[in-house]
Structures are given as structure tokens and as C-alpha cells.
């Protein structure tokens, strides 16, 4: 039974890696036109960032350990701290006493959903670019 389970596990892993490659390829395709407009450099310029009012993120963004306010639906488990892994694996325990490796299992389906959203994001950003590139303004259309 153990051998059979292991085989299935290996097949499943291989299948997932193949799926991962395919979805990453799709992401890369969607990225092209977006990055072609804005450039691929991650360097940030103050003028290109939307001004944030009170209640916006702090200048340094979300600190590790600080969950994003309001980012989770009401029925989702709340992450109270970002799971750090440095020093884990040698039997070290977290402050709560739990072993760091005793976490939830990875779910490929959650990653698939993220990939679909990333593709959708590329699509709507390109549509917005087309909206903004309308050289005629709103007079002739």
C-alpha cells in the first residue's frame, strides 16, 4: 500500500510540475504586453505611484508579521503572523510551541486560482492601456 501511495504521489507531483510549467508560460505571455508598456525594471519612482491618503499602507509596505487589513474574507482563517522559516528544521519551535514544520499542506488548486487571476490582471491592465492611449480624446469616438 505504501509503495502504491508513493507512486501516486510521484505521478501527482510530476503532473503538477507540468501544470506549473504551463501556467507559468501563460503568465509570461500575459506579462509581455504589460511590461512592454511600463518597462520591466522594478525600480520605483515616486511620481509614478498613486498618492495614498490616510489609512494607506505605510511607506515601507506591509511589515512581515502584519496581516493585510481587510484582505481576507470573513470566513477565511486570519493569519496573525507571517510564517518565518529561518532556523526551522532543527527541532526549533515557534513562540506558541508548535513545530514550524507542522503547518498546513500545500494545495495546488489554490495556486491555479492565483494563476488565473494573474492572467486576468494582465488582460485588464492592457485594456486600461488601450483606454488611455486613445489619441482622439473623446471627441471622435
Amino acid at each position, binding site marked *: 500500500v505504501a509503495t502504491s501511495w508513493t507512486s501516486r504521489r510521484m505521478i501527482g507531483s510530476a503532473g*503538477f*510540475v507540468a501544470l*506549473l510549467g504551463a501556467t*507559468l508560460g501563460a*503568465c509570461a505571455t500575459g*506579462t509581455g504586453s*504589460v511590461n512592454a*508598456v*511600463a518597462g520591466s525594471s*522594478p525600480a*520605483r519612482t515616486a*511620481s*509614478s*505611484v*498613486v498618492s*495614498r491618503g490616510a489609512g*494607506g*499602507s505605510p511607506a*515601507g*509596505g*506591509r511589515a*512581515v508579521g502584519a496581516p*493585510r487589513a481587510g*484582505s*481576507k474574507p470573513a470566513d477565511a482563517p486570519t*493569519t496573525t503572523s507571517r510564517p*518565518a*522559516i*529561518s532556523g*526551522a*528544521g*532543527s527541532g526549533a519551535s515557534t513562540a506558541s510551541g508548535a*513545530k*514550524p*514544520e507542522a*503547518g*498546513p*499542506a*500545500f*494545495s*495546488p488548486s*489554490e*495556486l491555479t*486560482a*492565483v494563476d488565473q*487571476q*494573474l492572467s*486576468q*490582471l*494582465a488582460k*485588464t*491592465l492592457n485594456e*486600461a492601456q488601450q*483606454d*488611455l492611449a*486613445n489619441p482622439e*480624446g*473623446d*471627441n471622435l*469616438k
Partner: protein
Amino acid sequence: MNAHSVSLKMAAGLMVGGLLIATPAAAMAATASPSIQSTTVASRPAFIAARQAVERALVSRQHRLALLTTEVAAAKSLTSSDQSTLKASLAAESTGIDALAVKVPTDATWLELGTDAKKMVVDYRVFVVMSPQVHLTISADTETAVESGMQDLEPALAAAIARAKAAGKNVGPEQVAYADLLNQLTSAESDSAGVSAAVLATAPAGYPGNKTVFVNSRSSLVQGRTALVTARGDIATIVTSLGL
């Protein structure tokens, strides 16, 4: 220049009724005395062509508003609040444009047609305000959803790395990838924060000044997406390396 583009330019000159003087006919309409502008000219070819151009422009706006309404209804990552706001704006614009589409065919004077054409453009700004408003709000909320989705994966990834290390595997590359994942998510969250609120606060009356809001919002979201694609690569590194 074909007949369509000629009539379109005449309508353009007209619709600005002061915005843009593009043709002699439009110039005449714009400079004519009020009494001439109010004279019934419904049967004149130039007027008919201009009116038909405005009618086509209205149909174009009706199609765009219908498309945007469909997009908003189908956008799964939109927050319910943003979706409600966009639906209300689209409904109001559709009502106004539909009313003009009924009225314009009955316009019989340059003054009437000019007034309606200007209203069609200035009051609604379907293409330069409503459209980017929809696409950028969907983009901002989608980006937030991706950030949340990736954040939800963090505990499982951290635990998998810890388990591999406990089993004796050298997990240095995975730990580096995980640390970068956290940094990229933090950057993306900073980029998308406040974007949907800024975009939804724009209005047709604010054009063209509010175009800056759209350009900057999109720039922030593109930066955020770049960070998320990098974060996705970090996840792939961990998943592939550990065989998850």
C-alpha cells in the same frame, strides 16, 4: 477622405459647439447667429450627415457601456462595494446615452444637435473616464485578490520548507525564495493600496485633469503585477524544488 470621415468631422466640429472647429460647415454652425442655429434644417444633406454621425457615436457608446457592464458583472475579483459603485455609474450613463439616442434623430436644428452632441461627450465621457475607471478598478481588486491568495499559501510553503530541512535537505535556495516572496508581496500590496478608491473618485466633469489619476494608477498596478510575477516565480522555485 470618405463620406463617413467627413460627416464624422463635421459632427466633431459641431459637437464641440465650441470645443473644436473642424470644418467650414461646423464653423458656420458655431459662428452663426442664434436665430440661424435655431432654423429648422432637418432636410439639408449636411445636417443629415452630421446627425447620422452623432447617432453612430451614440451607438458606439451604447455598445461600450454594454460591454463594460458585462465585464463588471463577470469580474470575480471585484469587491462587492466596488462592483455596486461601477454598476450604478454604468446604469446612469446608459440611461443618459439611451435617452440621447432617442432624441437626436428628432433634432431639427444645428443648435439642438450641437447641444446633444456636446452632452453626449462631456456629460458622460464613456471612453476616456468610464472605460479606464472600470478596467483599473477591476485590475486593482484583482491584484489585491492575487496578493491575498499568495499570502494564504505562505504557511504551507513555510511548513514544507521546514519539513524538508528537518529531513536533512539543504533548503538554502528555498529559504531565499521564500524571503523574496514575502518582500515581493509587501511591495505589491503597497502598489495596489488605495488605487481603486482613487479611480472610483474620478468623474466625467474632471476630465482631462483626472487622466493623471488613471495613468498613475495603472503605473502602480503594473509595478505591483511585476512584483507578483516575481513572487509567483519564487513559489514555483519552492514547489518544484520540494516536489510539492
